[in-house]
């Protein structure tokens, strides 16, 4: 959580200084949900398709910070080599597909990864997870993907971060059911609700959803209530969020809550947490500095091919 927050604060500064082109999309306020999901998954065995606000989950799952800074800063050394940017990154060969911008689209992709493992006879003990927001639950892709996963009884966990606004559109213009978790029953899958600002609650509830999926319980949906503590991107001041919502219960910062919980439960001292912050700040500086020093893509050296096959295929090499 802390790594994500400190890294993203740095990204925001770099954006405002004009060092990052395109956009910067933060997960501020959503770190508890994302990090607990990433922590519950096992890299090398499980699959995780992060979405826009999942820096914390990515880090917890094992994505190195340098993947983030390289992608934002356009380094050719990064996983996307300047061909895609910001949060549109991944390492599919390591179980972490790269999101496309079209919401809900990763739900069937993770289901398909799990389906492949079933066909290969190696599904047992694996889980696939993806995160989406309240807005994405309105897409056809979300519905089709979740329904298909339910039909196939795949160990898929979908975590819905209900941050109350899809960009600027509030929940009451997004869906008409009382609570999104009611939909789980309609899909015939497990459904959980959690306070997304409460780290310990998230660890418990999301951990349980992952455990159930892992042990044959089929798809699980977790709906976490929280508030995005930033704009949609750093170009957006989020001024459409009413003051009473901003100052209300879900306006509390999950990092402050988590620090309180760690100290109160004697899991860490305030001094230790402060030390972590210093260490992480240095780590982030190194990741930024390294990515900034690396080469950016050269249009004259780029191969400019969207296919892995090189045509023409000569007659002799055709099967």
């Amino acid at each position, binding site marked *: 959580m802390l790594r994500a927050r400190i890294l993203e604060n740095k990204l925001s500064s770099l954006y405002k200084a004009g060092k990052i082109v395109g956009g910067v999309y933060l997960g501020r306020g959503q770190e508890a949900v994302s990090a607990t999901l990433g922590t519950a998954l096992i890299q090398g065995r499980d699959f995780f398709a992060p979405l826009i606000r999942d820096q914390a989950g990515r880090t917890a799952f094992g994505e190195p910070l340098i993947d983030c800074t390289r992608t934002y800063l356009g380094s050719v050394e990064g996983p996307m080599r300047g061909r895609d940017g910001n949060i549109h990154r991944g*390492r599919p060969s390591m179980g972490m*597909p*790269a999101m496309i911008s*079209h919401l809900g689209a990763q739900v069937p992709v993770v289901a*398909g*990864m799990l389906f492949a493992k079933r066909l290969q006879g190696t599904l047992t003990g694996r889980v696939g997870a993806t995160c989406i927001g309240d807005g994405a639950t309105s897409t056809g892709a979300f519905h*089709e993907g979740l329904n298909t996963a339910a039909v196939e009884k795949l160990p898929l966990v979908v975590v819905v971060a209900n941050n109350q606004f899809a960009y600027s559109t509030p929940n009451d213009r997004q869906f008409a059911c009382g609570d999104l978790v009611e939909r789980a029953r309609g899909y015939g899958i497990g459904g959980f609700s959690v306070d997304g600002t409460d780290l310990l609650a998230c660890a418990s509830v999301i951990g349980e959803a992952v455990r159930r999926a892992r042990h044959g319980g089929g798809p699980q949906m977790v709906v976490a209530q929280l508030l995005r503590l930033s704009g949609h991107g750093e170009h957006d001041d989020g001024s459409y969020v009413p003051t009473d919502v901003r100052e209300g219960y879900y306006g509390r910062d999950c990092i402050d809550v988590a620090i309180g919980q760690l100290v109160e439960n004697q899991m860490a001292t305030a001094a230790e947490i402060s030390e972590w912050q210093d260490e992480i700040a240095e780590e982030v500086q190194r990741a930024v500095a390294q990515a900034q020093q690396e080469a950016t893509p050269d249009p004259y050296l780029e191969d400019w091919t969207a296919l892995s096959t090189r045509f023409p295929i000569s007659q002799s090499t055709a099967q």
Partner: protein
Amino acid sequence: MSVTYIDAIREAQEKLLREDDRVFLYGQDIATFGGAFKATKGLAEQFPNRVFDAPISEDAMIGMAVGAAIEGMRPIVEMQFADFSSVAFNQIVNQAATHFYRTGMPIPITVRLPSGGTPGSGPFHSQSMEGIYAQYPGLVVLTPATVSDAYHMLLDGVALDDPVIYCEHKFLYRWLKAKSINGDHLPIGQARITRPGKHATVVAYSAMVHEAVRAADRLQQDGWEIEVVDLRSVKPLDMDTVLASVARTGRLLAVGEAFPWGGVTAEVIARVTEEGFHLLDAPPQRLNARDTPVPYHPKLWAAHRPTPESICEALRKLLSF
């Protein structure tokens, strides 16, 4: 004994399932039922747990296939009709087609599109989508016109590491027969001279190859020798064969069954004009379906798509310059 175009598609899938355990079939009504056109008849029984019925969720079908391909499988997805692939458009053009360029990992999925018109099928069971998919980088678009190509190009398409849009023409399914599945086997990306000639070139693909050959047969009675080029794959486009043909004949007519705005025929003409303007003795012509939805009534339908008559008319105009 003869083998039909759809037999060839079924045979190819059977061979793939038998020989490559990474291959599985996914689509609506394709398991026990054998598919709306019976392209997978008997395969579910023959290959248990390799042929799966999908919910009516075209978007999720391609999403599932992409995920499975990431994990090493080679799915073949049957769209019940090419027209319904519009529901899966996002996963095809944004997920599958961009994946190799973005991440370096190719997505070897094959999407079978039962394409083109048949009498009485109407606006939503008759479309030709090849031009739409060819527009997007990252896809290979195949349009077999012969029984042997239907077989070999499906095998070769599944063997490619990239996403393949395999457009199989529904009109050819049972109408087109061959003595054997083994015709000449050209690599993907190479066009074929179906009928040699010297006075004009008709570039066609899929069912229009047969309509073009009929038109050429008629004009032969008047002494015209028309060359028919079967593109076989519209992407990649074999411009070497097309330009060599135009160099011989000096005249070009491009024929396609898709809607007229843009598309494959426009691309062929644009490229010939750009790369071989000096070869042309007459303005290149194109003939497509009309610019309306595909009509239901057989009389309207027959006049909506290019026919031997309209191809002959276009050729006579081309030859008159």
